[in-house]
């Protein structure tokens, strides 16, 4: 059962126009009909909250992640998921060839043969003494100050607030073959499906039932500088930094979170750890020092020095 990761997140929102501008400024490409894509075709779909085409909404939370659509490797994987989930719940076969079912926490899931395209873009290249990678005469800082901000490459992960992380985890591990790669006690587990090496595509945070919903979602960037560049450009457009930039401990991903008109956070990340079956999951208390290695805060550009000395 090879699930690659989330292909598309479908949100119901109050203000479609604001959300559309926001997602385009974040760096996703508008594809029409509320769809916004990263470079590999994964992305976000926004619809008005009352759009009857959306799965029904039963939670009190203000943000409305109405559906998480997973990309799977092939048709055989879809059949396997349909068989497995069909044992104890309704599985709907949609006309576009995808499946729809609900997880044990109440989140609506979709499964489709993945839309993601394989990217051939290079990662951010750096030079270090003894190990130079960028190439001769290639500048690491863009040659022009008006260079467009780097674009999100692929949908990385989604984070759910859930009232029972054990129950939520059990569904993804026992029914969909996800593995737990690390865990914060008192908060929740980091999970990834079998079709990716990423440290996490899914994370749960234990909260009171009234908060169940989406805490944030994230796209991978080409490297740490891309996170800083994209976040800096996004903030310069007036968007509100929430947390970061910084670097997480578990997963090692660089992060920068922003508030959003979708009512949850959105993040840029880069350089997440890749793991195989020899990885031994860690457990640590959910404290600030374990959450991040370091944290910085945006400030306006500034340079030491002042105007030239006055001529006498």
């Amino acid at each position: 059962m090879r699930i690659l990761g989330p292909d598309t997140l479908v949100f119901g929102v109050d203000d479609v126009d604001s959300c559309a501008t926001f997602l385009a400024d974040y760096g996703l490409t508008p594809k029409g009909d509320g769809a916004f894509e990263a470079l590999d075709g994964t992305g976000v779909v926004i619809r008005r909250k009352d759009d009857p085409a959306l799965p029904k909404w039963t939670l009190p939370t203000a943000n409305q992640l109405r559906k998480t659509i997973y990309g799977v490797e092939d048709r055989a994987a879809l059949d396997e998921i349909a068989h497995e989930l069909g044992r104890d719940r309704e599985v709907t076969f949609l006309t576009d060839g995808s499946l729809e079912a609900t997880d044990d926490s109440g989140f609506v899931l979709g499964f489709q043969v993945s839309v993601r395209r394989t990217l051939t873009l290079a990662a951010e290249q750096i030079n270090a003494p003894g190990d130079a990678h960028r190439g001769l005469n290639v500048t690491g800082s863009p040659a022009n100050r008006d260079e467009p901000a780097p674009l999100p490459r692929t949908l990385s992960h989604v984070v759910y607030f859930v009232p029972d992380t054990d129950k939520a985890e059990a569904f993804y591990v026992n029914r969909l073959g996800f593995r737990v790669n690390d865990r914060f006690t008192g908060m929740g587990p980091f999970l990834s499906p079998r079709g990716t090496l990423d440290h996490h595509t899914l994370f749960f945070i234990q909260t009171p039932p009234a908060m169940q919903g989406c805490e944030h979602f994230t796209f991978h960037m080409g490297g740490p500088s891309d996170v800083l560049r994209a976040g800096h450009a996004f903030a310069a457009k007036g968007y509100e930094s929430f947390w970061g930039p910084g670097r997480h401990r578990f997963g090692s991903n660089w992060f920068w979170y922003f508030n959003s008109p979708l009512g949850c956070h959105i993040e840029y990340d880069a350089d997440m750890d890749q793991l195989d079956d020899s990885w031994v999951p860690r457990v640590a208390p959910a404290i600030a020092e374990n959450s991040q290695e370091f944290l910085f805060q945006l400030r306006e550009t500034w340079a030491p020095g002042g105007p030239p000395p006055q001529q006498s």
Partner: protein
Amino acid sequence: MPAPAAASWVRVCELDALPPTGARGFDLSGNGIDDLFLVRKGELLRGYINSCPHWPGASLPWRKHAYLDRDASHIVCHGHGARFAIDDGLCISGPCAGQYLQAVMLRIEEGRYVSVLFPMRR
């Protein structure tokens, strides 16, 4: 040891500079995050510290000055969607339901300037 905080009146803008219905944030400390925001809706004028009671210190807007919902009926924290009454800052839905935004004292000076009683470090 940091000096104890003391509140002082700070003139932040002219009343006419505020939209008749809307909000405006002020970064008085120069930290890159608004310290407080004003909300005006007709005759109603209120000021609150920009900190969500759910996660104190968390900033509310999704964009500079974007503190309200689309029809300007509530203040919204765009971290997790908590909604607050404009007139008293009470959270009516969301993770901090029943808690209040911290109000700041306002006064109109010389009939046209809005001043806020802002806790500042000396």
